[in-house]
Every structure is written in structure tokens, then in C-alpha cells.
């Protein structure tokens, strides 16, 4: 195996991974709205129907529940479905299948049936989409036992984690940041690349405070952390990569080391996954804390229209200010 890498956007990395995994495993079937002829509304599935044919790359009717629900049946038949929900907000239409069926199939049947199902969906703000295209719903899924929730923050991880997700015998919700599709680029290994699900990534080391985040917010957190170096603040950045399973060990280690933490999420504050991080820190390393953990979040309102988006989505200014405030506490 060569160790060559290419610079790709996150979108290209995802597309490439779908190509190579479908090549590797004949059981994989891709289904969703506009995934075939159109190559996906963002081109994530470009070229797949041409290469693998209409049997393995299927444009479905506009029926999210039937997409998720038929994925269950495909898995029961021994196939490996990769279902696309065009925007995560429309997973609500399929919630009874995702939460009520997919997440419980193994448990309900005591492993008679194996839900080796990947659901891909873009989400997250910053690109002025219409309603329900930007909502960060990951915390709502995190409270549904039986679903793994994976959120890559780099192009390389997009490949490594998607490979793992597809091969994982458990159902994985693979959430792709809209803003990262073209906005995030990086070196990606050309050959097979596996990043195990459940291992957080310490993107940047640091001693004074750790910024904990996932998906696109990692990029912002990293920038903030780097800019803070110049001011003499040594901020670590932890990319959770997946929120279920949560890498409690990595989280505990870095929070214990730094004593201060800021959690950044784009979702509404109340009931967002940042709360779970704080609760976990409370459980695991309460006594190491030198200050309360800070949260940077969206607000407790529906994801807003375009002109208000910049106010809503956490940005470097807000993250920075939260870190500085946390550092001031004695």
C-alpha cells in the first residue's frame, strides 16, 4: 500500500470513499433522493450510478420514511444499505423508522437481524439555506440508544470515518457539515483509510483550557486556539468525531489536564449535546475543574432565516470570548 495523499475537499473525500467501498463490497446499495442520475444535490454521489448501475444506486421517490424503512429490509436481506437523507432536517419524516426501527432492530431481535445501515445526511448552517436544511439535531439522536452518531470535521476523517461507518455492523448516522463540503479541504490518504469510530482526536495540544467540539465547529475552534497562542494562552482542541460512542477517556484526560473547558456546538443551547459533555465532565473529572465549563451554542429558537444566520451560528468571536472568560475565572 502506498502512502500517497491527495488534497481533497470533504465532499470529494466522501465521494471517493463511496466509490471505493462500493467497489470493495458488492452488498452495498445506495438509496436516496437524487443520488443517482443527479449525483446528489451536492454531488456527493457523483459518478456512482454510472459505475455501479441502477440496481445499486437508486433514486427513490420523495419518501424519507420509506428510504429509512426499506433500508431495514435491505439489511434483513443481507445487503448493506447506505441511505441518504437529503438534509438532516427531513430525517424528522423518517424518525419513526430511524429511532423506532433501525436503532432497535438488533436489540428487539436479539441480533437475529443486523442493521448494518449507514444514513448519510448533510446539516449545519452558514450557507443560507432554506428552512430545515441547516438544523443541528445530533443531540436528539444521541438520546436514542442503538444509533451511532459520527460527525467528521476534516476531509481525511470524512474518508476514514465513513469507511468505518459503512463497515460497522451497527447503524450509523453519518452527519456531514454543509459548510465543510467545499469549505474544508485537506490531505486524504489515497488508499484505504480507516478511522475507528469512538476515538476523539486531539487536534491541538494545550495546557490551559480545552475547546471541545465536533463537525464544522472544530475548524473554528482550532483557529481560535491557534490565535490564542500569540496571547500566551495554550488552548487544546478536542474533536469528538462521534458523540455516540463518546470517547469519555480522551475527554476526561484532556479536561483533567487543562482544568478548564469550553464546549462549542451549533445546536440550540437547551438539550444540545454540549450539555451531555458537561454532565460527563461533572461525572468524570469534577474535581479537576478550575472553572465551570463554558458552552457556546446556537440559541433557543428555531434555526433562523438567512439574514439572522450569522447571529445564530457560533463564530470565532464568540468562541474566543468564551475561552477568554473561562480563563479569567479564579
Amino acid at each position, binding site marked *: 500500500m502506498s502512502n500517497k495523499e491527495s488534497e481533497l475537499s470533504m465532499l470529494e473525500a466522501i465521494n471517493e470513499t463511496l466509490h471505493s467501498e462500493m467497489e470493495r463490497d458488492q452488498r452495498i446499495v445506495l438509496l436516496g433522493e437524487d443520488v443517482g442520475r443527479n449525483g446528489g444535490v451536492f454531488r456527493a454521489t457523483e459518478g456512482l450510478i454510472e459505475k455501479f448501475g441502477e440496481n*445499486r444506486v*437508486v433514486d427513490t421517490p420523495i*419518501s424519507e420514511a420509506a428510504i429509512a424503512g426499506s433500508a431495514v429490509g435491505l439489511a434483513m436481506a443481507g*445487503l448493506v444499505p447506505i441511505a441518504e437523507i437529503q438534509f438532516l432536517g427531513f430525517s424528522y419524516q423518517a424518525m419513526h423508522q430511524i429511532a*423506532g426501527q433501525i436503532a432497535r432492530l*438488533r436489540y428487539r431481535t436479539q441480533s*437475529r437481524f443486523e442493521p448494518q445501515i449507514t444514513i448519510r445526511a448533510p446539516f449545519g448552517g452558514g450557507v443560507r439555506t432554506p428552512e430545515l436544511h441547516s438544523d443541528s439535531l445530533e443531540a436528539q439522536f444521541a438520546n436514542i440508544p*442503538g444509533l451511532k452518531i459520527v460527525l467528521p470535521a476534516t476531509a481525511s476523517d470524512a474518508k476514514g470515518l465513513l469507511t468505518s461507518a459503512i463497515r460497522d455492523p*451497527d447503524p450509523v448516522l453519518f452527519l456531514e457539515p454543509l459548510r465543510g463540503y467545499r469549505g474544508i479541504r485537506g490531505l486524504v490518504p489515497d488508499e484505504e483509510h480507516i478511522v475507528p469510530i469512538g476515538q476523539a482526536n486531539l487536534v491541538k495540544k494545550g495546557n490551559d483550557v480545552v475547546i471541545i467540539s465536533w463537525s464544522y465547529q472544530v475548524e473554528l475552534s482550532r483557529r481560535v486556539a491557534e490565535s490564542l497562542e500569540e496571547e500566551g494562552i495554550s488552548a487544546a482542541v478536542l474533536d469528538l468525531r462521534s458523540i455516540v460512542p463518546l470517547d469519555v477517556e480522551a475527554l476526561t484526560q484532556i479536561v483533567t489536564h487543562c482544568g478548564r473547558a469550553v464546549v462549542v456546538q451549533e445546536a440550540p443551547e437547551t438539550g444540545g449535546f454540549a450539555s451531555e459533555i458537561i454532565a460527563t465532565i461533572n461525572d468524570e473529572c469534577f474535581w479537576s475543574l478550575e472553572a465551570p465549563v463554558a458552552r457556546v451554542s446556537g440559541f433557543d429558537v428555531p434555526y433562523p432565516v438567512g439574514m439572522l444566520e450569522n447571529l445564530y451560528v457560533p463564530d470565532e468571536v464568540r468562541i474566543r470570548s468564551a475561552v477568554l472568560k473561562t480563563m479569567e475565572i479564579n
Partner: protein
Amino acid sequence: MPKPNDKQLQMILEDMVVARTQAGRLWNLQRQGQVGTIAPIDGHEGAVVGAVHALETESDWVLPQYREPLGLRKYGPEVLDTFMLYNLGHPAGGHIPDPIKVTPSQISLGASIPHAVGLAWGMRLKDEDGVVLVFFGDGASSEGDFYEAGNLAGVLKVPVIFLCINNQWAISTPTHMQTAADSFASKAEAFGIPGITVDGNDPSSVYEAVSDARIRATSGKGPTLIEATVYRLGAHTTADDPTRYVPSDDLSAAQKNDPVHTLTKEMKDRGLWSDSKQEEVETVALERIDDAFEKAKNTPLSVNSLMDHCFTSDTSRQSRQRSFLTNSAGELNE
């Protein structure tokens, strides 16, 4: 129109009598507090058994709603054994063993219908023979899942049979409040597939309809929607009081068409069934369910069952929870 021959009709009647008999015993077990909530099959026997006898157990899948399991005897004793575990609330009640092509009860109305479509689709992709038959009620037909899945199946032309058992009620909701459509079968129009209504009290009619649908499906012509009309002769479940809403005249009228009684009489008239046969079948059926019940009761259950089979392996939090459970099991499991 393949009709069941006399031999088959005898087997069908036998399975119907077994279902009816075991349903009675199950009801009593529930009343004694020995098992959980039960949804009796009474009135559905002809439709369920007639349908299943038109299938090939080695190749064809059956996805029941929750009222059918006692009628699936043709698929092997494992169905009843597992069903009794299910009725006890034992986790193994969800695991009908391989290679039995039957899924456990589906509580979420309509939710199995897209599964059936996906499964049939997968079988075709794998070039497997066989069809998928999914049972659901008149009530379940109002769920979006039925329509989305029916429409998808029509487009994909997958080998699936949608079997709507119209027992006139969805708990307390009568069919005229469930839909204004001419029939449940007529909903097939929306999917571009054939729809047919058959008398579900006559297992031969159901057998024929399913056989035809099976031929259609296996020859690549796609799905069929079958509506089998019956009458729910019992309560919705052991938790229900149907006297609140079922008009007693309707019920008496329906009782005259009781599928078990009707076929028994016909077969007796034709010399294909007898009182002694009936007695023998009933006795064996009761022994069988009592055995299954005993076996289920004696199936061990460990504290670990709570955590097993969520994921293929525990997350670190699940490990912690599992240790907590194991450590405090004595204390917890009073």
C-alpha cells in the same frame, strides 16, 4: 386461480383450530396474570392461515403485525415457542431463530411495510426466489408508512404481497371512520399495483389470492395489495372493553360467519373432518401451548440481557452501566 386441495384444506382447518384453541388458552393465561397484554386472533384465523398456506416456508418471508403469530404454525414450532417468550416479556421473544422466515410482532403500526419492501427488493437484488408477505390492519393502512412503502414497491416492482386484514375495527375506530375509500384494496390504485378484496372468512379465497399474488411477484410483475375482510370476534386486546363501541348486533351477525365454525361445518359435511379429529387437534394444541409456556417460563434470564444486543459491543458508558447492573443485581432484582 390455484385452489387448495382437500388435503391442504384439512391442514388449513387444523391450523385454524389450533390457533383458535391456543388463543383461548392464552387469554386465560393473561387473565391469570401469567402473560402480558394479548391481541386475540379470533376471527382472523381463516385469513392468516389461508394466506400462509399459499406460501413456501423455505423461500417466503412473513412479517406479522401482532395478531397473527398463532396462525403461523406452518412456519414451524419455533414461532409459537418464541411467541410465548414474547408474551412473557422475555427478550428472547424477539428472536425467532434462523432459518425461520418470520419476524416478531410489530407494535408500531405500518412500520413493517417498508421493511417488507426493502426485504423483497434485497431478495431480488440477490436473485433469491421467494416473496415477502406483510400483514397489517385496516387501521395501520392509515399510516404514512403504508402509502410510502406501497408507492415505492410499485415503482420498484418488488416481490411483495401487502395483506391488509380488515377486521372492521382499529381498536374502537370503525372502517368508515378510517377511510372513505371504496375498499382498502382500492388504495392499490395509488401505487399502480393490483388490489383485490377477498372474503377473509374463507381461507380458500385468501389462499387463491395469495397464490396469484405470489405468481405475479415471482414472475417479476411486482406487488399486489390484498384486502381480506373479516370481523374481529374478540376484544382488541386483553386491555380493551369492546362492549363500549362494538354494536352487539354486528357482532352476532359476524359470529354467524365465524371462519373456524364455517369451515369446520363444511369439512364435516364433506366428510373431511370429524368431532374426534377436532378433539384430538384441540388436545394437542393445548398440550403444545402449555409446553411452550413451560419452556418459556424456564428460559433463563440474566441481568446482562438488559445491555446485550444494543450494539455489537458496548460503548464505554454501556460497560459502566453493565458493571453497575451486575454489581447491584442482587440488590436490584428483589
